Structures are given as structure tokens and as C-alpha cells.
């Protein structure tokens, strides 16, 4: 329950710059999703906040207090590790109770038990409490790892791809569960993922990272509707934004090199001819793969469409994004 601020945080591992002058302010109680491919600096950002790793330059503040020289324990953060990091020689119960048994806290045993039970039930692992931590499936280990963070009441939760090895059904359930736990407790949560659905559904704010730089930071809706670059635009949206030569549909602004079209920015039934190359029926929607003057693009159409391969559809851009040679958005 605290605001987290990174101010010009830079961290390099040898030649490799993992974080480059990253500044962001995570409001108290926000659910921040960090998006970006492997190596973008997402995990490093979490480690900076947790104190497991220290910035070369720049500062980290939690609740307005500078974190210089403070250990992870003193920062009162709870972290869920991507590789689970369970204590292998302990049972699930002992793993979950471990953070509560800190001599600092002096939590009475019956409260520890109640808390462990509550978290285990939320995460659907209550029946595995007396298993050894190593005698679990990947998904179960991941849930224990999440549980170990949830038993506590830290100022900040840090989660590194916590749902990545769960099956689709459980992932959807835990997405909702995590979101409501966070909303109820009012805790600040930093969350790393590759999954844009997680970003869109859970985040109050999304941070888009590319090669150690923070490209854009804001509510997911804003990043979706108002991306600063091709890169940021490509992070969100299913199907992905179509990036085409700027003048493909006629007039383009000066300096524009590419035009970016999300499905809803492609008006069907007007404009120039394009040919349907493939139709994917997904149930609630249908994806159309189109060929337009030798360029492929993907859009969405009515679920009950009768279109098939080889048909001709007229399309025209509507309020498209234009990007310059560097990929930056032109307004």
C-alpha cells in the first residue's frame, strides 16, 4: 500500500544495458503490468524495486521513502519468482507459513494456520498442503509461489510471470482472483507478463519496455488507442495491428513511412478492392486474412460472415495511425 517511484534507474550487466534511464511513478494501489519481450528489462525492474538488485544510477522510492541501502526485508515487498523458488525441503504448508514465521512478526500459530488455509483455498491447493514442495506439478508450484506472497501484507507485490505455467482455465480463474485480491487489499502490484490479455484485463497501468527503455506508461486503454510507436502499438491488440507502407491507401502525411491499422480502423465495404485469402471462424468473431496490393493484413468481421477465400472485399482506413521512419507516431 504505497506509491512506487523509479527515478532515472539505470542498470547494466557488463556491456548489456538491462535498464536505461527508466522513470515511472506507480500510484498507490495501482496494478501495473510491465509488457515487453524477453530481455526488455521487465524482471530487472522488479528486482530494482525488491532490492535484490541495485541500480547503477538512479533511485527507487517506496511510499516516498528512498530505498537506498535497504534490504528486501526492510522494503517490505513480496515477490513471486518466475522459477517459483520454493523451499524444496519443506512441505507446501511450511512454504506458505515461512514468510509469516519471521521473528520480526511474532504471528501466533493459529493465525498463521488460518492465513495459510485461506490462501491455499483461494489458490485451490488446500488438498496439497502436506505434500513436499518438489512433489507438485509446475502449475501447483506456481500457485504455492503466489500463495507465499499473498499470505503477507506487504507494501508492494512483485510478480514475475506468475500465471505462465498454468492451464488456460486456471489462468482465467486466477486472473480474476488476483485482480480482486489486489483491489480488496488496495496493495500496489507490479506484474510482469508476455500475455496481453493479462495486461488488458488486470492492469490499471501498463508499462511498455523495449531494450531497457520505458517506451510508454499509462492505462491499457490509452496505450491501445494512443500508442507512441509501432512497438507500443504491437504490444496490445488481438489480432495484432497491421503495419503497411504509409501511401498504400493514397495520401499520407509528410515524413510518414508506415500506416498502422487495427481491425476497427479498417472500414469494410468502402474504398479499394482486397481479396480474402483465408477465413478463421473463432466463434465469437471471425478473422479475415486479406491481400491488398500484394500486402497481407488481418482484420475482424461479423461472426456469421458468409465470406470465403477468393472473395473480394472493399476496405478503407479510418482514423489510422501514421509512423515515421524511426517507428514513432506522427500526430
Amino acid at each position: 500500500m504505497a506509491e512506487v517511484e523509479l527515478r532515472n534507474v539505470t542498470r547494466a550487466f557488463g556491456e548489456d544495458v538491462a535498464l536505461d534511464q527508466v522513470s515511472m511513478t506507480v500510484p498507490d494501489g495501482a496494478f501495473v503490468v510491465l509488457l515487453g519481450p524477453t530481455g526488455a528489462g521487465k524482471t530487472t525492474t522488479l528486482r530494482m524495486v525488491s532490492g535484490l538488485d541495485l541500480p547503477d544510477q538512479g533511485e527507487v522510492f517506496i511510499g516516498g521513502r528512498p530505498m537506498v541501502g535497504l534490504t528486501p526485508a526492510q522494503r517490505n515487498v513480496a515477490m513471486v519468482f518466475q522459477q517459483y523458488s520454493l523451499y524444496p525441503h519443506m512441505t507446501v504448508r511450511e512454504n506458505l507459513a515461512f514468510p509469516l514465521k519471521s521473528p520480526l512478526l511474532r504471528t501466533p500459530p493459529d493465525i498463521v494456520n488460518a492465513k495459510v488455509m485461506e490462501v491455499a483455498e483461494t489458490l485451490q491447493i488446500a488438498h496439497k498442503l502436506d505434500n513436499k514442495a518438489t512433489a507438485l506439478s509446475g502449475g501447483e508450484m506456481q500457485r504455492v509461489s503466489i500463495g507465499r506472497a499473498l499470505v503477507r501484507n506487504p507494501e508492494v507485490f512483485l510478480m514475475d510471470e506468475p500465471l505462465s505455467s498454468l492451464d488456460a482455465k486456471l489462468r482465467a480463474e486466477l486472473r480474476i482472483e488476483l485482480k480482486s485480491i489486489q483491489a480488496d487489499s488496495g496493495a500496489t502490484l507490479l506484474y510482469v507478463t508476455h500475455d496481453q490479455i493479462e495486461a488488458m484485463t488486470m492492469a490499471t497501468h501498463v508499462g511498455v519496455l523495449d531494450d531497457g527503455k520505458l517506451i510508454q506508461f499509462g492505462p491499457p486503454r490509452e496505450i491501445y488507442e494512443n500508442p507512441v510507436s509501432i512497438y507500443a502499438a504491437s504490444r496490445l491488440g488481438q489480432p495484432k495491428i497491421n503495419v503497411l507502407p504509409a501511401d498504400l491507401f493514397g495520401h499520407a502525411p509528410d515524413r510518414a513511412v508506415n500506416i498502422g491499422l487495427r481491425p476497427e480502423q479498417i472500414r469494410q465495404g468502402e474504398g479499394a478492392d482486397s481479396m480474402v485469402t483465408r477465413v478463421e471462424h473463432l466463434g465469437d468473431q471471425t478473422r479475415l486474412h486479406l491481400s491488398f496490393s500484394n500486402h497481407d493484413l488481418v482484420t475482424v468481421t461479423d461472426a456469421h460472415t458468409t465470406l470465403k477465400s477468393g472473395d473480394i472485399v472493399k476496405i478503407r482506413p479510418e482514423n489510422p495511425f501514421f509512423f515515421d521512419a524511426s517507428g514513432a507516431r506522427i500526430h
Partner: protein
Amino acid sequence: MSDTPIMRLAKATPPGIGRRVGGLSDRAIAWIFVAPSIALLLAVNIFPLIWTIRLSFTNFRVNRPNRDVEWIGLENYRDILTDSDTWLSTQATAHFLFWTIALQVLIGFTMAYLINKKFRGNDMWTTIIVFPMMLSPAVVGNFWTFLYQPQIGLFNYVVGFLTGADPSSFSMIGDVALAPWAIIIVDTWMWTPFVMLICLAGLRSIPDSIYEAAECDRASKWRQFWTITIPMILPFLMLAVLFRGIENFKMFDLVVQLTGGGPGSTTEVTSINLKREAFERWRTGYASAYAVILFVTVFGLASIYVKALNKVKDR
């Protein structure tokens, strides 16, 4: 449907590759490969063992091959178990075992813990520390007799320098109270690096991320040590104890080099006692019975111990 690439591949594969080669079944071939090892084991391990057990019920003496051998039943066993020398040497062995294992595990673990910290040149230090282990016990025994020399020995000089006592006022090897410690010190000097290596392997098997998780869970270094390091390294420690225990139960070379069992019989561990019976008094039957008793003891203790070790591992 039936002409997919996978189906084509399936059809092209001949049925039952390698079931029989040259008219031999897989099982027969397996036996042919294993047979030489089994023959060797039988010849050098199992046969002598059975022969020893047979001899232990006789009064056979290997220096009198022409004398008739009498079958005397359990007499050798009774004599050994009621002989006070046996119990004295058992005591000497137990004392020696306890202290060498305790010291080596304690010092070895501490050294492993310290050298596991990331610092410059720790690989080089590991190599240097491991040197004593690479030497021959005969060589080690020999030069420690020089170090223990009261007049010119470095050990006595250093002890004298540190305590202010006269270096020539005590003799590690000649003194009844000090002689057992003379052997314990040398064995510890020589084999602590071995325990350190095993502990180091154990410490390196604990991933950093576990300590990072504990760090976030607000466990102090002290608590991390007791709740993570120690339980996770325990199987390795127990393995080290097992190796050193079995090895030191039959300790022979260092004792022969340093004290030869003396002064009196203060350092006469069981293996020395056994050697006396077998090759000085030439009581082969008696010595065989002694060897069988030792074998059963070590084997029994080791099995109990291995069971405990497996329990710890499965925990």
C-alpha cells in the same frame, strides 16, 4: 488419411528392429556383457569373503601349512569377544572415529561455507586446500613424524611459540595421552579438504533464487542458514560422514607410520590389532573371525546409516 507423412514413415519402418542378433536374444547379449564383471567380482570379492568365513571356524595358521586343520566351531568368536584387548582397540577406534569425523565435518563445512562466497581466486584456494588429500598416506605419516619431533619438529615449535611451553617438553607420539591426538590431527589435516569438497558441492547445489525468495520473505541471514542452508546440505554432510566413517574404521596406514599402535597399545585401533593377530602371531583362523566381526559391524552400521540418509533425502 492414410497417406500423411507420418503414416508413410510408419510403413517404411521395419517391424521389431533388433529383437535378435546372430541368433541371440537381447537377454543373452546382456548376460555376455555383464559376465566378465561378475566373474571378476566373484574371484576377488565374493570368493575371499566365503573363504574367510570358512577359515574363521578353524585353528588354521598360515605359517604352518602342513599342520592338520581342526574345525573348532565358534571358539575363535568367543575368544575375540571376551578378550580385553579387543575392547581396548574398539575403544581406541571409537575415540579416533568420533573426533576425526567431528573435527573434519565442522572444519570442512566452515571452510566450504567461507570459500563458497564469491571472491577473487577462490578456485585457486580450493585447489591449494585440496593438496593434502592428494598425497600418499605413507608420505603424510612420514613427514608428520618429523613435524612431531620434540627437538626439531615444526609442530612442537609452533605450539611452543603459541603457548610459551618448551617445545621439547612434550612428545606427541611418545606420550600416552597425546598419541591418539597426534593421529587425529594428521587425519584431520589430510581429509578435511575432502569433506570440504562434498560440502562445497552441496552448497553450490542450492540455487541463489531460493535465498532471494527467503530474503523477500524477510528471513534474516541467521534464519536462512538454519532453515535453508543446513537442511538442504544435510544429505551431503551425512554422505561425508559415511565416507569418512567407513574409511577411518579401517584406518591403518597413518597409524603404522606415526605410532605403530603405541605407546603401549594406546593407539592400537582394530585394524592394527587385526594385523598383529594375522601377520605377527600368525593366528589365521582367529584373525579371519576378527575380520568377519568387523565386516558385519561396518556393514550393519553402514546399512542403518544409509537408510537414515535416504530418509533425510526424501524429506
